[in-house]
């Protein structure tokens, strides 16, 4: 079982309390200006599907109930970092250096 650090609870807790919520940092197109079909399709459906470190959202659904972001290696399932929703996207190069 994965152990996930919740940045709100400040505890490392079992995976069963959490729910995966897709890729993180996907900005919704500004709907106040005309949005092309292509932009809208990209927002709805196009994901990076990376092999390696992946920026993704999680929700501590059976706990504090908060959404937060994480960087997880999709090959090894190792979490490089978890951080609160709304915080700046951490640079991958810094994370990889730190994890060495």
């Amino acid at each position, binding site marked *: *079982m994965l152990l996930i650090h919740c940045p*709100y*609870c*400040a*505890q490392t*807790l*079992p*995976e*069963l*309390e959490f729910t995966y919520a897709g890729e993180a940092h996907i900005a919704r197109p500004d709907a106040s200006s005309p949005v092309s079909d292509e932009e809208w399709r990209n927002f709805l459906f196009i994901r990076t599907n990376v092999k390696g470190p992946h920026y993704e959202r999680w929700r501590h*659904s*059976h*706990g*504090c*109930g*908060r959404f937060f972001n994480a960087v997880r290696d999709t090959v090894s399932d190792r979490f490089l970092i978890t951080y609160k929703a709304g915080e700046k996207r951490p640079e991958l190069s810094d994370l990889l250096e730190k994890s060495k």
Partner: protein
Amino acid sequence: MMALTPEFTPGQLVSGDVVSVSLMAPVARFSLRLRAADIPAVSTAIGVDLPTRIGACAHHETVEVMCLGPDEWQIQTDANDSVRLINACAAIYAQVPHSLTDISAREVTISIEGPGAVDLLSIGCPRDIDKIAIGTGCRTVFDGVSTVLWRDGETRFRLDIWRSFAPHVIGLIQTGCAELAAQ
């Protein structure tokens, strides 16, 4: 031993040397949501300093509060005290917007006591129970069901379960008790 009735009549569900489980009498329960800046005002109104660390508990007289999330608290109090609490919060509502929702009927509470209590909880709860400090608690999961666990002592716990899930969780706990007693 007593069977769980559809009315959730309080009483002993399992008794034994290893662990005993009982359904507790109904209490008044509230869910409280508010902004961090308004914590002092609401604390004064309800008469308990709201804890801000997730999992921390505070109590004063009959009122017990657990911090469930950054902006979420669960309050339990005596059924006779609920009117005072509702009125106190309503009085400050105009200055301090918040949400106090009566969820008394949503959950039932079981108490789990005895040297086997930690082992019993570990059959359904993936958390490391030993890491939950005495006098604190957490919202966690028990066999797929969201529950609130209060640790009152080394081997004394209370588990709040949503009413509709209670027969499932209590049934599993009774099976676990039988297994622990047979060891």
